């Protein structure tokens, strides 16, 4: 049997955990639970964006031996609230990834010229999809998706799920926070419920 893609061993902080979890290549873990229960905290701890103790293993390599920026590019956290640091959309992509972005954008029902416009003109749903594109063009090994379709209607949600499904077929693992039970059933191979900052199998 292949070793797990991602493994959490005793991952905890003063705010949440401990978490123990194994995720296989191509597997999607769906996490649900009330607001403030610690779902985002879990994803942020895995990406090493918040202080935490315990260990995370990527393909059996311990996180502590990997520089933080390298780790975050492979175990990529896509926040529910999208962040932008340039006026225009295009500079948010590196030159090498812009071509991949242009290929991905129409698949999420986004007009291609969106990439050449300013961020201010984007709707919330467009920002959410573009942030996902920005994450996926890095080809992460694990995607930590925090409500990836929270601002989207049913049709665009289906498009996002199709793209994520394709990535899983090529080995990407996903830990997804979702408020939608249907989405958790469609995408998640296993489902967990976050309650009082602990993970329970659903």
């Amino acid at each position, binding site marked *: 049997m292949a070793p797990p893609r991602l493994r959490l061993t005793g991952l905890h902080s003063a705010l949440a955990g401990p978490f123990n979890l194994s995720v296989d290549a191509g597997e999607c873990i769906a996490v649900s639970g009330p607001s403030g229960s610690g779902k985002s905290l879990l994803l942020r701890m895995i990406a090493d*964006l918040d202080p935490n103790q315990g260990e995370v293993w990527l393909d059996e390599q311990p996180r502590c031996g990997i520089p*933080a*920026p390298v780790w*975050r590019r492979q175990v*990529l*956290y896509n*926040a529910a609230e999208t*962040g932008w*640091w340039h006026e225009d959309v295009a500079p948010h992509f590196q030159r090498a990834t812009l071509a991949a972005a242009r290929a991905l954008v129409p698949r999420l029902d986004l007009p291609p010229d969106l990439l050449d416009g300013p961020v201010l003109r984007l709707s919330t749903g467009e920002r959410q999809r573009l942030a996902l594109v920005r*994450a996926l063009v890095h080809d992460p090994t694990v995607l930590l998706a925090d409500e990836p379709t929270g601002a989207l209607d049913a049709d665009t949600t289906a498009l996002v799920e199709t793209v994520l499904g394709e990535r899983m077929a090529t080995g990407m693992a996903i830990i997804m926070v979702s408020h939608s039970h249907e989405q958790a059933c469609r995408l998640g191979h296993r489902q967990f419920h976050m309650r009082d900052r602990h993970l329970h199998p659903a």
Partner: protein
Amino acid sequence: MTPILLHPGDIAIASALILLDAALSVALQLRLHWQLGIAAARMVLQLVLIGFVLRAVFALGLPWLTLLVIVVMVAIAGREVAARPEQRLRHFGNHLVGGAAVAMATLITALLALTTAIRPHPWYDPHYAIPLAGIVLGSVLNGGSLALDSVLGGVVRERAAVEAQLALGAPFMRAMRGLIRSSVRRGLLPTINQMAAAGIITLPGIMTGQILAGMDPLEAAKYQILLMFLLSGGSGLAAVAVVYLAVWRLTDDRQRLRLDRLIAKQHGPKP
């Protein structure tokens, strides 16, 4: 030419302008009259006090006393830099950052001036060292506090943007690049404006003072030019130091953004 000496009565007449301001504040319900009055009273008290202190220090001419006066001035300026921003770094971080930056910027600028351009004998002569440190400190305080306020406020406001970059694998310093640039710029802007306006829109304070005290305008201009360079240098150094020190306090060995090290200022009745 000897300077025209002022009498307390002359100053009392000028203080009528403050009273006028206060009356306007009451009439227009601006609620600024108390602040204005306290600030004016503080200013008078502080300046008279420093006049007496400097007179004594100059008369004694002791190096350690000169140093003590400058250290006290630096400490007060550091505290002011720390107090301005809405956001505070935990564990007296603002004071550490402000104090270190102010001390460094003032020391470098004042020492450079004392050992190269002005060169009094001895170089630590309090007649030169203390006023020079004082005027550099004023500019350093201004640049440092604006830059610190900008970087601490900015990092809270742009948290999502910074963390999005971190999550995509950017090193911390790269994720902070835009914020660092805009904060240093903010700290430098007043001095740039001051230099651009000098002589055309305003006659700078030093030059005005020296001309009023009887100095030749061209000589006064030369002094002003030297001081402008010192002030710009000082506030630039302070802005850069404050921003980099604050940014360093906001991250850790795993290049996270540690906003948990910030606390919002307690809003209380402060004059």
